[in-house]
């Protein structure tokens, strides 16, 4: 699949935003005294919403006819994209309610627990639906599995967690528990991603034989029937050399997981705390951006079978 920058930005930043928001809320509802204080929470939420909004705006750049974007919520009955859109839009009032709750201190503890749980769940569900946009496509084996939404959630949470750490560090000295939790999150996300890499490595899925109904012999493409590229070859024909993909996978593991985990683990104490977290965040973002690029670049749409690919 052709990796469109707008979509990469969208999924990574909004994922991180929802992750951050969810963690902020969750932390808030779990820990009695929030280390950030109300102002910190609001800042954290604002940053999260900023990321989310940036992501959503970025996603509209992907549209060829953005003037109809408002219609994108029409088909929540069936479309994960519509659901995602609706969840994303409805998240704003919920987030606002949460922030007002914090800001004005309204409602009791129970209300706070309810609204923060609701916001966190909503945020996670939204990332889940982002993942489902891809996971529901039977045409792309690399996406059409449970690991896709899991990865989206874990990576969003991971990035959110790292940003959260950074924000917390501006208010509080190190909170070991948080660092440890973050590290676990990184490790779990890394494991999920590694499992994914292995999983998509085994050939499965439709073949040129089932695509053409000639199942008993070797089938080879002779001619595509057009001189130049088409919408189909541009959108789906994107292909990167195997070696480069492998190299990029190592970069993902390095930037998204190894560096953040390592700095969290050994960096604290060696460097100023904000530098440690800044490195983790930046590296994490770079890593997840590459991961997202790979998510597209490694996905092989079945239409490629008709253009000569033997198996997707």
């Amino acid at each position, binding site marked *: 699949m052709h990796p469109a920058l707008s979509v990469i930005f969208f999924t990574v930043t909004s994922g991180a935003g929802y992750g951050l928001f969810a963690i902020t809320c969750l932390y808030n509802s779990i820990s009695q005294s929030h280390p950030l204080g109300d102002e910190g929470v609001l800042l954290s939420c604002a940053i999260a919403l900023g990321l989310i909004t940036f992501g959503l705006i970025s996603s509209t750049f992907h549209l060829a006819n953005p*003037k109809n974007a408002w219609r994108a919520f029409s088909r929540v009955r069936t479309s994960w994209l519509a659901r995602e859109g609706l969840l994303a839009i409805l998240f704003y009032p919920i987030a606002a309610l949460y922030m007002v709750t914090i800001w004005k201190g309204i409602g009791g503890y129970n209300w706070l627990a309810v609204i923060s749980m609701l916001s966190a769940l909503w945020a996670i569900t939204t990332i889940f639906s982002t993942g489902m946009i891809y996971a529901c496509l039977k045409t792309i084996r690399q996406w059409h599995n449970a690991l896709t939404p899991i990865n989206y959630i874990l990576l969003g949470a991971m990035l959110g967690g790292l940003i959260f750490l950074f924000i917390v560090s501006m208010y509080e000295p190190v909170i070991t528990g948080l660092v440890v939790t973050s590290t676990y999150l990184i490790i779990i996300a890394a494991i999920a991603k590694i499992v994914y890499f292995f999983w998509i490595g085994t050939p499965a899925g439709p073949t040129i034989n089932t695509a053409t109904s000639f199942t008993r*012999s070797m089938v080879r493409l002779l001619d595509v029937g057009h001189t130049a590229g088409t919408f189909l070859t541009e959108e789906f024909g994107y292909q990167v050399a195997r070696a480069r993909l492998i190299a990029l996978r190592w970069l993902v593991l390095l930037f998204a997981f190894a560096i953040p985990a390592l700095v969290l683990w050994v960096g604290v104490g060696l460097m100023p705390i904000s530098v440690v977290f800044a490195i983790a965040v930046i590296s994490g973002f770079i890593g997840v951006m590459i991961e997202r690029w790979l998510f597209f670049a490694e996905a092989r749409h079945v239409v490629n079978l008709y253009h000569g690919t033997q198996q997707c």
Partner: protein
Amino acid sequence: MKLGLVIDLDTCVGCNACAVACKQWNTSGTTGPLTDFEPYGKDPTGVWFNRIRNYEVGDYPNSKTVHFPMSCMHCDDAACVTVCPTGASYKREEDGIVLVDQDKCMGCNYCAWACPYGARELDREDGVMKKCTLCVDRIYDENLPEDERKPACVMTCPSHARYFGDFDDPNSEVSIISRERNGEQLMPELGYEPVNKYLRPREKKNVDTYVNETNSIKAVKDWVNRLVAR
């Protein structure tokens, strides 16, 4: 009704007539124009609803060349429609034709991602998704002579490799021929239930050889003249 096509791979010679007929009809049709880019320049390309690809099955000298026309299969379980967030893509209740409402599409490409058969092409100029309409603007146009109320591609196919009709009607040409010749769906494992069916090449014909047991002529003198009047 369940309208769709049957493509006969036994007779398709890959002439591209159907593809061009589709282009000329539809560029002034209900989802037209079908924009062309660099029409006279480098790498000309454009929006087509029907494309012919060519494959080779098996190895030389026993290879078989197969011409493979593909357009929208008007799937019964059309994920292209379920994924469409705007509702621009829909499957008509009355006849099963899958269409894109050009006024509602936002050009997100999502439906194209969901289509296994490469049947949808974005018109970058209009910013909307376009696809085979099953010539809805022909088949129902009562101002056209009745025998011309067929898709342009079907009308034009010189080797009669395309059939159009109602699969709900067990006595329609398409139902009968796909029954008789085991019309197949492409990539059935994906479960889209494509309506269009493909007829695989017929079995190779076997012809007896004629050997004149009693005869083995070695030279002209072996022949005896017969008395035949001119």
